[in-house]
């Protein structure tokens, strides 16, 4: 999944401009000529410079690389689903952690991913996931005192 340098260059230019523009509203330190805006502005200028170099360098290359390049193997729908399942799992963790609690969400996320990656055997995935979720919960909540939310199981695991 390769984006061409000129795509990154345009992103850097836009990002640099946005940073510089946003920084213009930052206040100065009372009694000084500068303040919160100085360093972000310098960073923004740096982005503009690098963006220009990236774009010019890429346009000079011949043959010009494609805007976006995907490995044929990675491009298969099933692989794409594999890739998407990872951020989806993280997103599910973020959204469901507090309503459901750690153990159910961990089971869901780990079990789901194992099932997806192995293309089958959901029961074994579920058992692995439950075991691992309970173990992680015990480790972090009891041993390391990380306050993982209990959620649904608050009366059982407390």
């Amino acid at each position: 999944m390769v984006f061409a340098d000129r795509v990154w260059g345009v992103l850097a230019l836009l990002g640099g401009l946005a940073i510089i523009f946003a920084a213009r509203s930052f206040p100065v330190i009372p009694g000084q000529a500068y303040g919160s805006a100085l360093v972000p502005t310098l960073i923004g200028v740096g982005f503009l410079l690098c963006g220009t170099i990236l774009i010019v360098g890429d346009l000079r290359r011949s043959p010009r690389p494609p805007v976006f390049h995907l490995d044929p193997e990675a491009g298969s729908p099933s692989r794409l689903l594999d890739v998407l399942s990872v951020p989806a799992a993280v997103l599910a963790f973020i959204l469901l952690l507090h309503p459901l609690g750690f153990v159910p969400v961990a089971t869901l996320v780990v079990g789901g991913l194992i099932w997806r990656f192995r293309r089958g055997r959901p029961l074994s995935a579920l058992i692995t996931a439950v075991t691992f979720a309970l173990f992680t919960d015990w480790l972090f909540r009891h041993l390391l005192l990380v306050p993982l939310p209990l959620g649904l199981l608050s009366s059982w695991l407390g």
Partner: protein
Amino acid sequence: MDTILTALSYALAPSTLVVVFFASLFGLFVGAMPGLTATLATALLVPVTFFMEPVPALAAIVSATAMAIFAGDLPGALLRIPGTPASAAYVDDAYRLTLKGQAELALGAGLVFSVIGGLVGALVLVIAAPLLAEIALSFSSFEYFWLSLLGLSCAVFVATGKPVKGAVSLLLGLFISTIGIDVAAGYPRFTFGITELMGGVSFIPAMIGMFALSEVLRWAVGHRRAGVLVQQRIGNIFRGQLGLLRRYPLGLIRGSLLGTAIGILPGAGADVAAWVSYAVSKRFSREPEKFGTGHVEGIVEAGAANNGALGGAWVPALVFGIPGDSVTAIVIGVLYMKGMDPGPTVMLERPELLYAVFSTFFLANLLMLPFGWLAIKCFRRVLHVPREVLMPAILLLCMVGAFAINNTVFGVGIMLVLGVLAFFMEESGFPVAPAILGIVLGPLVEENFITSMIKAEGHVLAFFERPIAAGLGILTILVWAMTVRRALRPEPQIAVSAG
């Protein structure tokens, strides 16, 4: 002499040894978990140390942190997930060594040179603490500004591939470090009204995302074959270490001393030490082109440096009550609680306690050899787990680690965003190491820059008025001039294939 004997009797008392034993196991475990740092290990130990005598209490912290910094190398080498930020600098080299089937070399080097670095740091602490603390204390924001800028130049050396791509990555890291309430004017920047962002982007979730999550993604994309570990068993980790010792004696000494020195400077700890040492190692190496491709030299030097920094950080903490890093910030509290108020008086009033604590530094570092060996033995079992099961499990540990830093899912969100970004960056040939360096050093650079500007009332010449600052300033400008010249030269063909 009496003092030293009393000190040893404290340090080798059965109760102390038992505490050191359990604290070491605890430290190994915490360090090996992504997202859980040596600082967290210390913070978790504090309530336990309430009920201990002074020497065991401090010995617990000493041994747990030393083990944690080493243990951070384990998931780094085997899974490309640095267990603590201090292992991030050389994680690519260690991981690629494992892929090449040389895990024992990477892990063994991490262990052996951690021990040596730790011993050097402890030795410096014993011999020269008062003198060095004095020097560190004479540094004002001008000196720190130049030092942090010098640190940024390391980005050029930790980056692989095209210089401009390294620069973009560094700028991204610096930008991320400006998010949140800025230290200078107390104004919330780039927070979009989100309270959580006012505290800034935590470094740990960022690191987990950029290294670990992007690795899981890359595996899922179908680089499965590339990611399949050649190696199913790890041989004798100590084999070949003597050879490394003979091959890189200079790097080892340089890393240990530089790491200790960076530890002594307030505000910079084991993570900065590892990055700077790695860059220095590459700069002076005879084969810099091999760095980042699975080369052990950087692991030797930076692995020694991060453990050396631990001892170094105790220097200003003990002598003046000024923390050398985030671990010793907590240690100072414990010292007060145990009636060992930091300051030169502690050396005069309770020398036997102090020397007992120093002894535990040596003890902990020596214990690291057998403990580390055992930990590697246990940890390598991870490699036998099928990747389809291992990757989801790693992802869960990463999410828990990102959660634990502030106990909110917000950290997990940061991990996700930066992980996906880092994945696309790496696919397109942008190195992520400079971004991490930018996040680490960005606040130091900005804070010292703005503070110095306020003191100088905008006069740039004030940056050269103090003698040490002038020396550091000229050195920094020279290094940067050379760096830019190097970057502008037509790139050699090797750089492209390495990226």
